[in-house]
């Protein structure tokens, strides 16, 4: 598992692999209940210093609640949150070395953009000159120099979001919580800001926890991603790991597109398991390090870009299925073929569009083969 790291990084940043390392932040069996509704359910999680940690999950799964507990606006119903060695329970929000960017921005309406950004610095009684410089730095970071004197009600949604971001960054806190910081920005500005955030985070050695609905964003910025569902964490891993080796159908489905085939585990030889997925069809092969119980229900998840498609039967393939092209999704750079198998199951195969659309060799209702290597799929048992 540890072998999967971002290849473009010279030094491997993976403090979570070393049990000697102390986490900056530790959730210990944290549960948060609102009345009899459980928003966060027995959550245990370590976040290390200098991490860029992303929380991913559907709406209402408890992401904001987790952040509010970190910032001190909610107290865990049971369990502890440790920052370093300190239980945060008795530290009020204004004394925590944590800043939060609110999902609703929460800009002070009676203060100008400038004053909003300077607010936290003023509370720390920093020298005037330093405040001024820092505010300017933040304004240029979020490209709002021209709006310094405006009041929040004179800004667009995206501008407000950038002010909120600048305000939370201004104090350069040890731990910064970003609750959907870039949701209202256009794609270009968002990508630009993502890289700026990564730069700042690296340069200042801060720890970021970010909530996002955009999995591409999470993959881009995060050192690790946690996928949440109904107040529970389903998996925590690096972007590559979580994408390539999801531990459940939920995670596989949540991040990116995936084909999932249900079946019963057959014989496992060496590191290859076989899945009996339909009457009269050949078994599917999948590489796995686990030893699944023969006869158990299991699933094979395979990403569409790892599935190949052709009109002729491939000469050699670990898994090959025949079907009919049902639909073609075109998104410019790639085409997604939805292939219907004999038993009604749909398999998606993605092909990069190397040629112009007119030359597409495969079209609707063609009889085709879809195939993939056994190492391309993952065996899931939940």
């Amino acid at each position, binding site marked *: 598992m540890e072998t999967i790291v971002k290849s473009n990084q010279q030094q491997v940043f993976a403090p979570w692999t070393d049990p000697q390392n102390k986490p900056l932040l530790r959730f210990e069996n944290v549960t948060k209940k609102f009345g009899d509704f459980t928003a966060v359910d027995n959550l245990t999680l370590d976040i290390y210093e200098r991490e860029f940690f992303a929380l991913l999950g559907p709406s209402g799964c408890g992401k904001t609640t987790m952040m509010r507990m970190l*910032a001190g606006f909610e107290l865990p119903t049971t369990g502890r949150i440790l920052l370093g060695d300190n239980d945060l329970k008795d530290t009020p929000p*204004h004394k925590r070395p*944590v*800043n939060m960017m*609110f999902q*609703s921005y929460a800009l002070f309406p009676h203060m100008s953009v400038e004053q909003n950004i300077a607010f936290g610095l003023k*509370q*720390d009684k920093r020298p005037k000159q330093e405040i001024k410089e820092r505010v300017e730095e933040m304004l240029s970071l979020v490209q709002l120099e021209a709006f310094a004197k405006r009041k929040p009600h004179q800004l667009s949604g995206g501008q407000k979001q950038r002010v909120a971001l600048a305000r939370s960054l201004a104090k350069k806190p040890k731990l910064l919580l970003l609750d959907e910081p870039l949701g209202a920005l256009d794609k270009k500005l968002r990508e630009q800001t993502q890289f700026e955030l990564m730069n700042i985070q690296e340069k200042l050695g801060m720890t970021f926890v970010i909530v996002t609905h955009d999995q591409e964003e999470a993959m881009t910025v995060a050192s690790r991603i946690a996928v949440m569902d109904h107040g529970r964490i389903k998996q925590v891993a690096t972007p590559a790991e979580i994408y390539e080796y999801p531990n459940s159908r939920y995670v596989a489905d949540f991040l990116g597109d995936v084909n999932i085939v249900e079946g019963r585990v057959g014989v496992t030889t060496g590191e290859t398991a076989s899945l009996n997925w339909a009457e009269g069809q050949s078994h599917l092969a999948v590489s796995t390090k686990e030893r699944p119980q023969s006869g158990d229900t299991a699933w094979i998840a395979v990403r569409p870009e790892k599935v190949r498609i052709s009109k002729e039967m491939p000469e050699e393939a670990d898994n090959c299925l025949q079907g009919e092209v049902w639909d073609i999704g075109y998104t410019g750079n790639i085409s997604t073929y939805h292939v219907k198998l004999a038993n009604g199951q749909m398999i998606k195969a993605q092909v990069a569009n190397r040629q112009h659309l007119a030359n597409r060799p495969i079209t609707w209702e063609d009889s085709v083969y879809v195939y993939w290597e056994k190492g391309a799929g993952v065996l899931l048992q939940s």
Partner: protein
Amino acid sequence: MAVTQPADLVETEEVSTQAQEGIGQKVLIAVPYVWLLVFFLAPFFIVFKMSLSDIAISIPPYTPTFDLSEGWDGLVALWNALDLENYVWLTEDDLYWKSYVSSLKVASISTLLALLIGYPIAYSMAKAPSEWRSTLVMLIILPFWTSFLIRVYAWVGILKKEGFLNYALMWLGVIDEPLTILNTNTAVYIGIVYSYLPFMVLPLYAVLEKMDGALLEAANDLGCSPIKTFWIITIPLSLPGIIAGCFLVFIPAVGEFVIPDLLGGSNTLMIGKTLWTEFFSNRDWPVASAVAVILLLLLIIPIVLFQKQQEKQMKEDG
């Protein structure tokens, strides 16, 4: 022909509904203006004219009066008889400006007291569980169900020497001798603050209730203690409510007559009382009118300020 006819019909219909809407809208806008003209501007001009007249022993007790039977000459004579004598008189007798100053003082102090008492009330109402809030608002409005006059009379019963307040304080052992509160300025303050408190609480409650709690959390998050947050976030953001409440208490308090008359003493000087004396005891309607006109001019300043503030607020909200 057959084709164009219906289209024509539709067009004319549209035009007529538009015209109707235009008239309807104008009528709607005109209603408040007509109301103001009939019930405010016209009476004001009558009072103003009276203030330029002279006292006379007749009915009505001033001269000159309108007499349309004399025609144009009569109007000219009327015009010539008007003068500013009464206003000059207001500057000569120091009773008047003392009454004005004293009224402004009483109104200012009462407004401040109402703010100091009203703010915590409004604040705790806004912080109460939401299912309680409408009940609390009801309780604030409840006193209006009883006549204002009766409620002020009730204070006489409470504040007098052998009243409830003295009785309770003596029973508790706080005092040995009954306090003299009735017929002092203290009683006037109590009366005004009590009577006008709802006008302070309601606008304050309105702004505090809709204030976004996330703002306070954001301030806390950025290192601002809860007490400081109250001063630099809550108070500035409730300023529109503070201003509205203060004007709503201050403006009627300046001209208040019933409360100083019933609860105040002989040394309680308020312009409403002076006006009443001038009008009913001295039967000097022209001077009373002059007093009223000056009072109105004095109040126009805060009213205009209030208007300006409201407009500014509207702009910021919109």
